[in-house]
């Protein structure tokens, strides 16, 4: 391994590391590593695929670009930023990993993440499960009616849709309306109890954004832009991302 590393580091000018440095604020401090190992010792992904954050950074510094941009470890690091938090030099390893992911041809990136991103960007709701705004509205409406009828004290429970000027724009992870709709009710009850002025929207209500994890910059930007638009259109003050 040492031999190979030395050979490749001869082509320093085109190093993957240099490209990443250019796009990060303060160059991500990627050259400042003291090899202290604090990152690796507290990283849950250490050991997976025989790698850890310190090794990955070494590979980058040594110009082992081929290994760096093909290792599946890029998808084992969750970009949780703990390494950066404990690093004495504040080195942005998660951003390095993000760019390692982005170096993969799109159609070779993990299918599950890619499908979730594509599905979300194919519907107005941006739901990674493909649940449209219409389906969401129906689910909410039916459930609300049921609760009003069956639960004492909640005859007036509200779950407003597209209410202009509401203070809170509440989003929801697709998993609830899709798989466990009853989990939405406690939240409605809480909002009801505190007298919150809130609304759902049939557009852009889905909380998740897998395009970010896919390291597809354009797609995740589009995803978030559509959601921000939905909030603006209703004139809401606070975008409330639920649990």
């Amino acid at each position: 391994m040492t031999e190979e590393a030395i050979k490749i580091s001869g082509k320093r000018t085109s190093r993957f590391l240099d490209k990443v440095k250019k796009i990060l604020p303060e160059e991500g401090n990627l050259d400042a590593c003291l090899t202290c190992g604090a990152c690796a010792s507290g990283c849950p992904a250490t050991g997976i695929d025989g790698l850890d954050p310190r090794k990955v950074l070494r590979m980058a510094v040594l110009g082992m670009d081929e290994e760096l941009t093909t290792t599946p470890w890029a998808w084992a690091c969750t970009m949780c930023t703990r390494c950066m938090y404990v690093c004495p030099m504040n080195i942005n390893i998660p951003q390095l990993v993000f760019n390692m992911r982005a170096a993969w041809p799109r159609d070779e990136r993990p299918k599950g993440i890619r499908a979730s991103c594509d599905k979300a960007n194919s519907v107005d709701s941006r739901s990674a499960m493909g649940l449209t705004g219409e389906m969401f509205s129906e689910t909410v409406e039916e459930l609300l009616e049921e609760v009003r009828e069956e639960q004492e004290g909640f005859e007036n429970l509200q779950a407003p849709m597209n209410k202009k000027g509401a203070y809170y724009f509440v989003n929801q992870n697709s998993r609830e309306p899709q798989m466990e709709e009853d989990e939405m009710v406690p939240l409605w009850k809480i909002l009801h109890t505190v007298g919150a002025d809130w609304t759902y929207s049939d557009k852009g209500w889905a909380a998740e954004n897998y395009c970010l994890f896919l390291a597809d910059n354009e797609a995740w930007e589009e995803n978030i832009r559509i959601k921000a638009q939905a909030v603006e259109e209703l004139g809401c003050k606070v975008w409330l991302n639920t649990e």
Partner: protein
Amino acid sequence: MEYAKWIREGKLPVSSDWNKDLGIKFTLQDPCQLVRKTYGDKAGEDMRYVLKKLVGEENFIDMSPNLSNNYCCGGGGGFLQSGRKEERRTYGKIKFDQVMATGADYVITPCHNCHSQIHDLQEHYGGNYHCIHFWTLICLSMGILGENERGHLGPDLEDFGLD
């Protein structure tokens, strides 16, 4: 953390009385996305304030390490969708051990990824804890949690407060 604000303002009349005699123990997952990456320890402190109000100070057991220093559960970054199940569980072992060390009956998981991952770890490694959201516990403590809204509660609480 709007819940903390509403409790401080007296708008959300929660209480921990229900758990005085039961003494059920709770711990809390600090989602990376919310705490370390976005709002910092203040969000973590707010969640602890809420949780203690809900279950009683003595029934909250913190993980170690915690707050911004907490370990990622391993569900984040798309890991749950990446098809690398075995590696994901290897990653999550450290979280599982951390939860088990608290001895808690419930983990509050205020993030969907954390919820799915920590629940999967419990099944895979054979833990004896349950994963719930804050909203479940808030409604339970106020006595307004409906019968159908208890999918994630354990047998100890699934009928609690229903007549």
